[in-house]
């Protein structure tokens, strides 16, 4: 998860002296911002493509695989048994060339990488090399779409719960800091140094292995129940442990961060002033503390929404949750560049769009922020 300070940094509001024409200013600002963001994406995706091909090393692996597979195929084919060895070798070479052409391996990587890049940028995700969706399709788009609901369910449940519960708890803790609960939360915040899969192991140990009340992993019991209510219950049962692992691992640090953040804002002079005026504490909280912190809250929420997309690679692997994180991991294991790049590009686009939109949202919620004046500051 992105920390608070990071989130503030990503989308830095720009405050400048009064402009000439608001419309022109906004247009210019948006243009420059869009171009920089797009440039960032192009570079990042090209890097991902090169890494996913390991600078051509993956090609060697794939060539070797093709050679072995086709040779075995031709030699084991009973129809080829009586062929002359020379003819058979020629047949093998021809088939290898054909297969390499099918996968585009006959072109140098430098050429192919730019084709991959254009395809990725135009969201033409193409076909997977080794992976297939459960329905048997090789289209990357279908593979991703098939896995997306599982990830959205897991990450959505845990992150939304985490976001709203920590915000609420932090606000109430900041109201009475120094209390017992406050101290408990502070002393428990180091627990967030462990990743979710770590808590997952303990949860599995307690609830699946010892108590035997929740399943070890997976998303639905096998065979899946026919009845849709039973199906939902079964999914809920499987969801409990991975979602709890994700929540526990960042709960206390999240509360601690938000609480500290609110406390800093509630020690501002204008809050003291409002208290001195005798305003009711609800009003102080809403208008004087929450309002100025709104941009940060919104940034965090937006970043949370895109983090849903990436899934949790290790947590999903540990819990055998059939989501995008596990697909990512499997794709890497199978050297499936199109799937790796496909997942990366969608994430990059979502991130860029969010960052871009946040600039405008900032201007809406924070009267101190004015969009534009071109360029960037701080």
């Amino acid at each position: 998860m992105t920390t608070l300070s990071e989130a503030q940094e990503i989308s830095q509001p720009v405050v400048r002296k009064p402009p000439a024409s608001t419309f022109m200013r906004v247009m210019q600002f948006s243009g420059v911002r869009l171009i920089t963001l797009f440039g960032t994406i192009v570079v990042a995706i090209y890097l991902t493509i090169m890494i996913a091909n390991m600078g051509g090393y993956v090609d060697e692996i794939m060539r070797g695989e093709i050679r072995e597979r086709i040779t075995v195929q031709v030699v084991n084919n009973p129809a080829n048994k009586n062929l002359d060895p020379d003819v058979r070798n020629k047949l093998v070479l021809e088939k290898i060339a054909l297969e390499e052409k099918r996968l585009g391996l006959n072109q140098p990587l430098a050429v192919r990488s730019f084709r991959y890049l254009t395809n990725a940028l135009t969201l033409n995700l193409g076909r997977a090399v080794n992976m297939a969706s459960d329905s048997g399709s090789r289209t990357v788009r279908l593979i991703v779409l098939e896995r997306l609901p599982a990830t959205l369910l897991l990450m959505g449940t845990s992150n939304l719960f985490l976001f709203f519960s920590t915000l609420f708890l932090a606000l109430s803790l900041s109201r009475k800091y120094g209390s017992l609960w406050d101290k408990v939360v502070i002393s428990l915040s180091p627990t967030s140094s462990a990743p979710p899969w770590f808590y997952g192991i303990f949860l599995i140990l307690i609830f699946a292995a010892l108590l035997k009340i929740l399943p070890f992993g997976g998303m639905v019991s096998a065979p899946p129940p026919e009845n849709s209510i039973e199906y939902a219950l079964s999914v809920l049962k499987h969801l409990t442990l991975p979602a709890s692992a994700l929540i526990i691992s960042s709960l206390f640090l999240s509360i601690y961060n938000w609480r500290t953040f609110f406390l800093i804002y509630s020690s501002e002079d204008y809050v003291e002033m409002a208290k001195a005026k005798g305003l009711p504490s609800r009003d102080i909280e809403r208008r004087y503390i929450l309002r100025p912190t709104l941009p940060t809250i919104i940034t965090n929420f937006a970043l949370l929404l895109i983090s849903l997309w990436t899934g949790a690679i290790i947590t999903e692997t540990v819990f055998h949750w059939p989501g995008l994180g596990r697909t990512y991991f499997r794709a890497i294991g199978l050297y499936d560049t199109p799937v790796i790049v496909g997942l990366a590009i969608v994430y990059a686009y979502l991130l860029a769009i969010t960052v871009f939109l946040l600039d405008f949202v900032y201007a809406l919620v924070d009267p101190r922020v004015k969009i534009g004046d071109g360029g960037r500051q701080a």
Partner: protein
Amino acid sequence: MNALRKNIREILQYPSAIFGSVIILLLIAVAVYALVTIPYQEALRLWRGGEDVWKSNPQYAPPAWVNFFTRKKLPVSFTMSTAEVNENEAVTKVVEIGAQNTSKTYITYTFEYNYDDFPQEMSLYFTTTYEAKQPFVSILWITPDGREIRVGDFGVSKKMTYRMSQDEKLKRRLGGLPPMQALFADPNSETLVPLKGTYQVVINGVSFEQDSNIEAEFVFYGQVYGLAGTDHLRRDLMVALLYGVPVALAFGLLAALGTSVLTMIIAAVGAWYGSWVDELIQRITEVNLVLPFLAILIMVGTFYSRSIWTILGVTVLLSIFTGAIKGYRAIFLQVKESAYIEAARAYGASNLRVIFRYLIPRMIPLLIPGLVSSVPAFVFLEASLAVLGLGDPSLPTWGKVINDAWLNAALYKGYYYWILEPAILLMISGFGFAMLGFALDRIFNPRLRGV
């Protein structure tokens, strides 16, 4: 010096800082102990294992101290060898010279058995010397109530292993029961419980040549072993748990140190020079924020190299250009305008001198808490990669123990110790650094003090 003493006094006011420091010091002590007692090459050899290294260990055995917590005492593993006949009274070996170059060898192993369960296996490892004609041995089993059970009679080759539970003839002779149960079972009991008392294994050997000799090692494979237990390859987990300490500390500290120091230097350089240098750093940071961090590490591990140094390098490289660099840069931009920097420039300090002598030292109070708090994340990162099967192929680490346990369905089969031991060590070291980091953060960032 005074400032340092003042800081230490301040640290001592936070119980969590003291607790964290104690844990860290203990870990460092264990790391030094591990590196001294098990040299690097030895650790690799032990962990790579093989038949010769771990043959006398039981498989999947929990640590011996579980017996303190359970009512049902599980048998502890041990070995006895004729090589130690002079030191160990429980082993006797007598050789009688007979007629025509023959000789008789009597070997006995005596041991107490006070456990409530049966062992996994008992084996005899024979090493004999002869020219042409094999010696012949017959093995007797003597129970506490004086029964004598014939275990087996066979010729022994130069190196030979005899495993009692795999002897089908013995199994038939014992009425079809698994030999480990039948040999220890109490004949007067209705249920299958072991008879407690003193057992003896007697080997009566006959050699047919003048210089022929019989040596034998008796290995009792219990159900618990040592301080840490064993895994599926009979390896003593203690090796990995001990050696995991220096590996985890080295990875965590080096990654944290490399990341925070490099981040600070790059941020200072960017803020000081400004213009295109700054712009470039900003762009790299934005590109890096789009790149999927863990996925790239997994790709490097899968495609390129799983060496811990490569992974460390890539981790540091990817962790430099994150949000932290922007935070440092913002502060450096403020510091840059201070009067003392202007004074430094006035006396003609070079750019590098200003950066390293004036800008960076100013930020060290911010650097230290961040550095300490980021250690756990890197320690867990190394373990996470190992759990995904991307750990360093040769080094014994905590993550790899968890990975082995996971692949062998340890939780499902009930070998909890296998996962819990490395996990608890990970947790302790992670929390140690996190607690110290939290306290340092409050000491060095006065804005948080009192909060």
